[in-house]
């Protein structure tokens, strides 16, 4: 939280960087995208082991992907540009549910991916987009980074509210097992955008504060209060008011986060801040001290960081291809290492990892952070 806030101050103080600031891009919902009406619709049928995209050849322009989940697992749908830069995604598609995604696609080659169980690289297929597309000017590429990332934040906040609602529902119903299963899922969406969420200094402590972090006289509330009840006592009797407040606070922070406009420098710093979150809170097992679901958070922070970097990718790739290669390599290495600790649709408990395994993850994050920390300077020079 402090990082982002501090960076904003720094930006305001340095006039020469004002050119980096993005034009306001409004609420940025799907409906705001140009040419939404009349956009061709492409049907996508997602199951637990397939991702059937109706057509692989598209004309340049805006397209509407209608994604139907006929499988048994919650899924996600992504459209990736080069280097896994997300140009469009829709999260949290429950079994039996259909969702739409509007995305503007200049000519080029893309990948469509479904992620049943919301894990891994997903089931991918190539999309070829043909037609005229003006080369993107440098400042536009940077501006697009902010837009890309804002769309990502919005997709995450949407899922965060939905999953938190489901979690709260289970808590209030006294369903300990159900709530325990939903807890790390809801937190995934929080952790993916943590630097943005944390930039709201009044809400972050009441949603994500850990026991003992409260000022004198303040109550211990939020995710971790309920986590404590779920794993330490198994008694949810007193949790109703905490659950209600959590949902209300999450809804509020989602509304505010959707309005946040991030400039490229903030994206760069946010990407590093997410890795710092891993290094300080997840590698140490401090974040989820009762549930030990720290590796879920680890994955979410890592994904969020990767997303922020990839939003900057077109600009970075031109300015410093070697850095991009190093970042790509280290993200891939860390993702692969973390994947070794998957269990089912989730992860092993933090307590199941050995010291050498944690040391390996820590080394990977240190290496990745070193590379990602170079992004800000590159972006600032553009």
């Amino acid at each position: 939280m402090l990082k982002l806030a501090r960076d904003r101050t720094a930006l305001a103080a340095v006039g020469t960087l004002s050119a980096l600031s993005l034009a306001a891009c409004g609420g940025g919902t799907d409906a705001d995208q140009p040419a939404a009406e009349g956009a061709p619709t492409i049907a996508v049928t997602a199951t637990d082991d397939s991702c059937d995209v109706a057509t692989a050849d598209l004309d340049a322009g805006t397209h509407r992907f209608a994604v139907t989940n006929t499988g048994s697992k919650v899924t996600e749908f992504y459209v990736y540009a080069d280097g896994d830069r997300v140009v469009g995604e829709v999260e949290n598609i429950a079994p039996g549910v259909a969702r739409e995604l509007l995305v503007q696609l200049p000519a080029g080659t893309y990948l469509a991916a479904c992620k049943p169980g919301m894990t891994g690289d997903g089931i991918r297929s190539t999309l070829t987009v043909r037609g005229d597309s003006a080369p993107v000017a440098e400042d536009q590429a940077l501006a697009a980074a902010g837009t890309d990332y804002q769309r990502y934040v919005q997709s995450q906040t949407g899922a965060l509210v939905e999953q938190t609602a489901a979690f709260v529902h289970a808590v209030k119903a006294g369903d300990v097992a159900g709530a325990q299963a939903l807890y790390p899922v809801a937190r995934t969406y929080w952790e993916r955008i943590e630097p943005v969420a944390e930039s709201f200094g009044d809400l972050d402590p009441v949603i994500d504060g850990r026991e003992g972090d409260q000022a004198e006289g303040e109550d211990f509330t939020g995710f971790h209060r309920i986590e404590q009840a779920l794993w330490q006592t198994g008694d949810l009797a007193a949790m109703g008011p905490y659950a209600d407040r959590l949902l209300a606070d999450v809804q509020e922070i989602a509304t505010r986060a959707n309005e946040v406009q991030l400039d490229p420098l903030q994206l760069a710093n946010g990407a590093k801040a997410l890795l710092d979150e891993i290094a300080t809170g997840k590698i140490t097992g401090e974040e989820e001290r009762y549930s030990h679901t720290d590796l879920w958070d680890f994955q979410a922070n890592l994904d969020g960081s990767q997303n922020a970097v990839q939003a900057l990718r077109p600009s970075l790739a031109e300015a410093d291809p070697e850095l991009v290669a190093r970042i790509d390599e280290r993200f891939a290495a860390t993702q692969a290492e973390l994947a070794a600790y998957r269990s089912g649709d989730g992860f092993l408990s933090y307590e199941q990892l050995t010291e050498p395994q944690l040391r390996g993850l820590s080394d990977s994050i240190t290496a990745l952070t070193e590379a990602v920390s170079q992004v800000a300077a590159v972006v600032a020079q553009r």
Partner: protein
Amino acid sequence: MTGAADRERPSGGLSRRRFFGLAGAGAGGVLAAGVAGGAIGRATAADAPVTDPAGATGAVPFPGPHQAGIVTPAQDRLHFVAFDVITERRDELVGMLKAWTDAARRMTAGQDAGEVGAVAGGQYAVPDDTGEALGLPPSGLTLTIGFGPTLFTTADGTDRFGLAARRPAPLAELPAFPGDALDPARSGGDLCVQACADDPQVAVHAIRNLCRLGAGTVGVRWSQLGFGRTSSTSSAQATPRNLFGFKDGTGNLKSENGAALDRFLWVGEQDPGADWLAGGSYLVTRRIRMRIEPWDTATLADQEQTIGRTKGSGAPLGQAAEFDPVDFTVTAGTQPAIPRNSHVFLAHPANAGTAILRRGYSFVDGSDGLGRLDAGLFFIAYQRDPGTGFVQVQRNLRSDAMNEYIQHTSSAVFACPPGVTGPGDWWGRALFS
């Protein structure tokens, strides 16, 4: 042995011929309030001049036939670090060693670690120096690199970097010794860097910046701070005291010992691995915890009998002054003045049959949770071959009365290449070429 040794008085009761015939290599002591004066050699005008780091603030030259930080007069402060190499890529490792060499060259000259510096870069760049040494003089900083056996072949036999065939036989894990209580987590290592300086902040700054430059290529395996030197490596230096309160390093190998250094310290042209290691030396580290509280409740007589020297002057028992020769024939009543199980007796070159250059530091790493200080000596020794150096000395210390008061808690061995020769040279060039 000629030169310095010829000018020495033989140790009491033993001829020099006998003394140096014992091992064909060799003299030294481990904790060494012990090792004899006289035995290895005293400075003389004919010996190589001491490279004094211009008081406590000057710079020690970085290039040279040998790495600085070995016979360099021991500075007051230490930050030692051992690394694991975490990359599988040789080119990354080589790139880091080059970057380290550049940074070491700069930092030992009192400059920032990187060309830009701590504060001269852009507002949004990560500084290429961490800044805590801004405004501080070079402070005699030396940075000395070593390569551990696991760099060449991992514990499970993997030749990660195509170096297995380059490992000289003496670079092998040390054997187990009686009483060892080694913590594997702070033993061993693929690489090490010894940073010594007369300002602790300068030493820590150097290690920290090397760690930063190594991100993604190496990870810190363990590290150790030392706050006070426990050996002299030059006769121009006064002998310091270790945490037992005794003078330590009286009879150390010293920079003025000329031919003895070639015999006992530096790897020679005919030695294993000479193609990349000649002019280098092997480094053994042992973190030796001192059982401070039992020691502090021992009588003065007990302490002196344990060490074999007087606590005040540092004179060998039975003698008057620190540098008086150790004479094992002197008796006190019916018993030898220097007990046969004292540290001096067992570690003395006449009995250990070898010599090593000690360069250790005192440490206090907080407390142990049982109300006792976690304190002792971080033992550092350089030698031409660990087998005829430290290992030989340590084996002879099996019945050392001092063992009651110490425990070895960490162990490592490294091969330190010769110094870099010029602006284009880098740490490990000969090994990786």
